[in-house]
């Protein structure tokens, strides 16, 4: 299909983008890599009055090390991210999960920030960002602010950003001494996850000292599996512990039922996939 008519602007700075958003009003929409927005425009599910294309904003694709964090510019493409040495070293979970996103063409156009700001609960990166306790750097008319992952994802396709704000960068805490794994389950290779599990496990002398588990597509936002995390805190790193902990994966979740999978099946998958993710992340 062909999108409805819209205005288009391509600012060259973050401030310019913020201004363009303000001028565009409620119907303005940010265009990053376009891998979610363009299909929605073509199907006429979305009809914004103006598209603010961030493609011309300098520096937004940079990925750098600020000491405690790896800072990923929102316009870094999936390919930029998964092939970046800092990411591979300090946040391999992101590199691994990003490699499962859609297909090669999408990964070369789609952006890290765009995927997070789109906040599709079936997307892989919100869950990963959630498991890693990432922080979101948001710019708006009154300057910049930092939002934690637990506050960023508010609802289905909805974030804590105001309509006049945009995502500038994501700060990823470096994980040293952790094992991580993303376990994704989908119908066909390039499809969204029916369920995904992002797990990070820290071990010490046969004990799991800490675990973080976030679930993809088990609710309207990425969900932290707190029951699993509790069960694993300072627990022995053995098969039985992982199994018992993983059995709690679906606690408190409210997955949807759709053509791809029923809610019950998703809940079941969450437990199996969590066990497998923990297994891999924990190096068992």
């Amino acid at each position, binding site marked *: *299909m*062909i999108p*409805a*008519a819209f205005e288009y602007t391509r600012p060259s700075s973050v401030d310019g983008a913020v201004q363009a958003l303000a001028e565009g009003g409620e119907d303005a929409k940010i265009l990053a890599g376009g891998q979610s927005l363009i299909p929605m425009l073509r*199907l006429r599910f979305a009809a914004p009055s103006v598209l603010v294309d961030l493609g011309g904003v300098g520096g937004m694709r940079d990925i750098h090390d600020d000491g405690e964090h790896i800072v990923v510019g929102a316009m870094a493409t999936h390919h930029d991210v998964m092939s970046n040495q800092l990411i591979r070293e300090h946040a391999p979970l992101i590199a691994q999960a990003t490699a499962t996103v859609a*297909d090669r063409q999408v990964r070369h156009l789609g952006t890290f920030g765009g995927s997070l700001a789109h906040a599709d609960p079936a997307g892989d990166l919100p869950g990963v960002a959630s498991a890693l306790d990432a922080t979101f750097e948001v710019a708006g008319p009154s300057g910049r602010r930092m939002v934690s992952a637990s506050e960023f994802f508010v609802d289905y396709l909805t974030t804590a950003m105001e309509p006049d704000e945009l995502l500038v960068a994501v700060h990823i805490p470096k994980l040293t001494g952790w094992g991580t794994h993303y376990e994704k*389950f989908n*119908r*066909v*290779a*390039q*499809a*969204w996850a*029916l369920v995904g599990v992002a797990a990070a496990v820290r071990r010490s002398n046969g004990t799991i000292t800490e675990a973080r588990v976030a679930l993809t597509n088990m609710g309207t936002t990425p969900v932290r599996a707190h029951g699993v995390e509790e069960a694993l805190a300072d627990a022995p790193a053995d098969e039985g512990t992982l199994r018992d902990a993983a059995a709690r994966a679906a606690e408190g979740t409210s997955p949807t039922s759709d*053509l*791809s*999978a*029923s809610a019950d*099946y998703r809940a*079941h*998958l969450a437990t*199996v*996939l969590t066990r497998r993710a923990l297994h891999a992340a924990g190096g068992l």
Partner: protein
Amino acid sequence: MTVTEHGSGTEVGRDRRRKEDARLITGRTMWTENITLPGMLHLAILRSPMAHARISHVDVSPARHLPGVIDAFCGRDIADIQGALACAWPVTEDTVVPDYPPLAVDEVRHTGEPVAVVAARDRASAQDALEAIEIDYEPLPVVMDMEAALTADSPLVHSAQGTNKSYTWIFDSAEAGTGGAVADAEAEAEVVLSRRYRQQRLVPAFMEPRSVVVDPTGDQITMWSATQIPHILRLMLAMCTGTPEHKIRVIAPDVGGGFGGKLQITPEEFITFAAARRLNRPVKYVESRSESMLSAHHGRDQIQDITLSARGDGTITGLSVKLLANMGAYLGIVTPGVPILGAFMFNAIYKVPAYRFECTGVFTNTTKTDAYRGAGRPEATYAIERLMDELAAELDLDPIELRRRNWINHDEFPYTTVAGLTYDSGNYEAATDHAMQLFDYDALRREQAERRASGDPIQLGIGVSTYTEMCGLAPSRILGQLRYGAGGWESASVRMLPTGKVEVVTGTSPHGQGHETAWSQIVADQLGVPFEDVEVLHGDTRTSHKGLDTYGSRSLAVGGTALVNACQKVVDKAKPIAAHLLECDPSDLEFTDGQFRVKGSPSSAKTLADCALAVFTSHEMPDGVEPTLDADATYDPDNFSFPHGTHLCATEVDTETGRVTIRSYVAVDDVGRVVNPLIVEGQVHGGIAQGVAQALYEEAVYDADGNLMTGTFVDYTVPSPADLPDFVTGRTETPAPGHPLGAKGVGEAGTIASTPAVVNAVVDALRPAGVTDVAMPCTPERVWQAIQAAQQKSATEGGDR
């Protein structure tokens, strides 16, 4: 005289890279969508959001005033010129064939049915203007389910017809004299197995969406269309709109795939034709992918009740089949005939003493169904091959051993089946032995036993499919007996150009198959000219005025024979001319490697090119010889061709998640003599992929209100190479005896064979868990639920004991 190097008769059988691929892959060619004509307008079509409704009010005038818009119209506006779409295959005398207006006039019967049209200077303006059209619908009750549709109080898709039944077609071997009575067989059998299988609805999902351009210049109207059937399209445009046939030219330029999905005369073609005549300007319509998924015809969609009776040793004694076939809301060009093609294939490669087949075509408020790769034959093959595995399990026999006990042995050909076909050739033993060896059948069975014994959460399953199919459509006489509206012959012309180059005109209409390459190879051998010197022309009714197009794996089997015959005529015509040039008697000449040589005097020779130049100048022609080498041939086959083969699939089934992974896949196909092994390999790979897609991935789903839920490739999950295994392929070659090339056809074989091989493997993996069937597509959730249900059943039964 120049002596040129000529081919040595070795083109056929050679791996030739395809001539057409560079332009097809780069897109630097003429697709219908690329065509731009002066003053051309673009159409956008408004489609019904309702599955069944009366159109109570339409006002297109608000759209007419929008920027760029030239015209807007609804069904009433063109009711007198749009014509009606026809069904060419009413399979019984009393088949119900409802009226089928291209643009709905009073009533819509499925979502996506065209209801109004905008013509604008550009496509975007046309699309925007659709939103201004005012249309009111009075909802009518919807019927989606075939069994519900046949009940007395069901809502009617076509109220004027008084029924949702299109037809019931019956074949009974006792009545036909080809076998015994099924009732007797079932009464006497030691084992009777009955199963119900569902052929889910599929979307053909060709790569290039359908598009059409119509140019009315003077009283000639030219239509370009992304179609498989330009010749049939021209005929139907003439017959159904009243436009004289000689005033219509149809061109299928390069076409990006079809799989049967473009074996159709579409409402969109008729609407565009009507718009061009109404506006007297060139117009173009290009569908979006969403429109394609929604409104291009779908495939499959049958409920199959099948009963097999057998002796205790596995010998089949009878087979009965009762089908419900979903027609959709209207009948397309061959909609009713598709399941009937399956009638001849349920007995497959087996010696079946008694057979009964009954099929009822049912109308529902869905997009019409029609041909999709295999068309009736994959459905039949699936049901019988699934049931053969079930019978093997019931009798505790190896599934291959059961097949051996029942199949037609290679020394029993030609063999007339219980369905009345005469299979000309085959060697099921050889294909199966070869497949088992490539597969390492015994080793996989051992591994399966080990995994079962250890309770491995990943279970191994082995699926068998020994198939045959009838293709090379088709002997006109048989098509006539089946009430098909046309014949099954094919035509070819060979034109010798003065420089010795060759133009070949074929009546087949390739849309990705590689005819230009294969036809060139055939001509190179037949005429002894270089492969590069042959140009293959197709798809334009002005150059190729005669043909029946491409579907049903017919092009090489039928069109290739016509081509060989035309080449023979060229040689026959050249012979007296060569004799004249060599000043000898024609009977002294032999034709080898492109040269006429005087027997016993090899240095005296004339090439075909010499003869072509001699004909061109005509300075020195023998008396009474017409100065041309050009020749036409039309060939009507005596029989179908019967490719066959054995496909073996090993699946790993994750019993915790239900995910099925194909571990290995072996396909041994016997497609007769092979013209180009590379093309055959490609056809087999693509065919298997589409068959696997039905087994594991694809399903078109409607909700209860008639909305298509799988309207995009997000929900309609077509597998990619990342989802498919490496295919191990092998061939046996049993040449088709009735064919000068020995070729049988390969376009559909992989699709027909692979679906049951995969599902048999899934069920085989889970049989120890008590699973006896998984509905297609075998999604992870369905597999998981089948395991849960079997566990519950076994727990309940355990409790009863």
